[in-house]
């Protein structure tokens, strides 16, 4: 039995030897003990049929456990009225599950209306949330099928946030949108989470998504076994067994670098007189690399900020014709360059440190 203990902070959700066996005899969740800290993102990850969605749905009693106890905010969920409990917990599902016969605004106002806020107050709150999740105000009057998949998911998130619940359950919320939109939605979620500090439980089968979003990641194996639960860095540095290592993939070293920023990576002045020159505009913002030998040949440059990851630096050092990565400040003005050797050296050291620290 694996017990995941976040160590610090209040615990919001606690699973105590929770077992779920369905009437047809299959075991969905096997003696799970798991703790989720307040204000943190816990990602449940694993291949299909591993019990991660069942685990999530037991938190708001969409599924009741066969044995064991689940506490939310210290209170046993089975002691609470299921509908009341669900109104106090935000719930976002795949394909958004929006009500097709209600406008976007009324969809978002669902839980406030169930809580008896009155139509006016509920709609005002819904309008406020449209902005929070990055939708235009006039989207409120439209119907779900008139929106794109990504916009529908935003509405789904707004609906879950409407009554300002402390806990948010998200069941593969970005599973059905294309990769570009998915990345956007992940960024938005991280931005929102910085503002709102909800306790989020997030189910996905995409390990990259888990590494990006999770404060802690719980990996499940078929049969409902929790294999490992750890921070992303810990997980990538020390997978508990071959199953976890396989699940993390062959590039898990690179994924670890995606968690480190390049702020401390040394940089120097841009060299002059080489085979390639870094061309700047008047504001000293990098434009492109220009070739000395064949005039007119230009290669693109992707300048990196200090908040970008070491993985991005490594990638850019390979893509750059000189092996140099242009570094810029928040305004996009060149601050210096870092060499391929420095980056590689620094990345290797960072990886070792992370492995030891984790």
């Amino acid at each position, binding site marked *: 039995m694996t017990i995941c203990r976040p160590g610090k902070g209040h615990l919001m959700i606690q699973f105590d030897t929770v077992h779920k066996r369905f009437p047809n005899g299959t075991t969905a969740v096997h003696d799970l003990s798991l703790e989720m800290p307040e204000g943190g993102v816990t990602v449940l990850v694993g291949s299909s049929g591993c019990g991660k969605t069942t685990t999530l749905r037991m938190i708001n009693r969409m599924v009741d456990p066969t044995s064991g106890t689940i506490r939310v905010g210290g209170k046993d969920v089975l002691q609470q009225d299921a509908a009341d*409990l669900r109104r106090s917990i935000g719930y976002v*599902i795949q394909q958004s599950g929006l*009500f097709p016969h209600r406008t976007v605004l009324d969809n978002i106002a669902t839980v406030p209306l169930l809580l008896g806020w009155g139509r006016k107050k509920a709609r005002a709150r819904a309008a406020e949330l449209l902005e929070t999740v990055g939708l235009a105000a006039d989207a409120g009057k439209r119907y779900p099928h008139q929106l794109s998949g990504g916009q529908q998911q935003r509405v789904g998130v707004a609906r879950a946030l409407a009554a300002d619940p402390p806990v948010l359950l998200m069941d593969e919320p970005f599973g059905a949108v294309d990769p570009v939109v998915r990345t956007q939605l992940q960024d938005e979620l991280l931005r929102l989470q910085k503002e709102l500090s909800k306790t989020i439980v997030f189910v996905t089968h995409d390990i990259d998504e888990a590494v990006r979003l999770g404060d802690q990641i719980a990996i499940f194996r078929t049969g409902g076994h929790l294999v490992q639960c750890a921070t992303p860095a810990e997980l990538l540095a020390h997978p508990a067994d071959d199953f976890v290592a396989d699940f993390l993939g062959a590039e898990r070293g690179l994924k670890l670098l995606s968690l480190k920023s390049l702020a401390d990576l040394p940089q120097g002045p841009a060299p002059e007189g080489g085979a390639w020159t870094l061309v700047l505009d008047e504001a000293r913002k990098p434009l492109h690399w220009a070739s000395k030998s064949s005039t007119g040949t230009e290669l693109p440059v992707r300048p990196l900020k200090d908040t970008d990851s070491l993985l991005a630096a490594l990638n850019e050092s390979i893509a750059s014709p000189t092996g140099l990565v242009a570094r810029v400040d928040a305004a996009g003005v060149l601050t210096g360059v870092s060499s391929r050797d420095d980056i590689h050296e620094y990345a290797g050291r960072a990886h070792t440190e992370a492995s030891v620290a984790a």
Partner: protein
Amino acid sequence: MYELFKNLGSWLISGDQWSGSDGIAHRIAEHLEYSLFATLIAAAIALPLGLLIGHTGKGAFLAINLSSFGRALPTVGLVVLVFLISGLSLWSVYVALVVLAVPAIVTNTYAGMSAVDPEVKDAARGQGMRGHQVLFQVEIPLALPLIMTGLRLSLIQVVSTATIAAYVSFGGLGRYVFDGLAQRDLVQVLGGAALVAIVAVVLDLALAGLQRYLFRHRRTAAH
């Protein structure tokens, strides 16, 4: 043939024919009264039944089969049967028309309910709706286009069949058909039949238009 249609034309538009207790206007009113009342009774029986089996998912097999059985019963036979049992009463007509109307409402209501996306029902429960809230706020509104289709189909079927009221001596547009037959007045028979057809078609178009208007925001148009 031409003469017949010319006579039919003047029968339909002559002012005398439209007024009085024997007139077309009165007969149409009677006909609609029988039809609407029968459909209302049928709806009172069939809607709760369809909603119940749709919401619980139980009893569908039995209900659908009973409905088919009701559909297979010959309506005229039923009128005569109830007429023989209950005597000269409008109820014999209503019983027969209700039996005719119930199946389409039950099956369409059930079909509408079972076509509601399970994901949406799941989301409704997940947001904290109780059973009756899921039913009235999500399932019924989403099933409404098909429920209305069932009501419309039944009403049209009842309007077309309500001529049998005249068969057991009551009014309605059937009067012209049965009186015409008795009097060997072909124009009157044709006139009555044409009126029944016109009333049915006009009602059908009007209700279909209403449905299209009510559900104009739905992705799938009303059936």
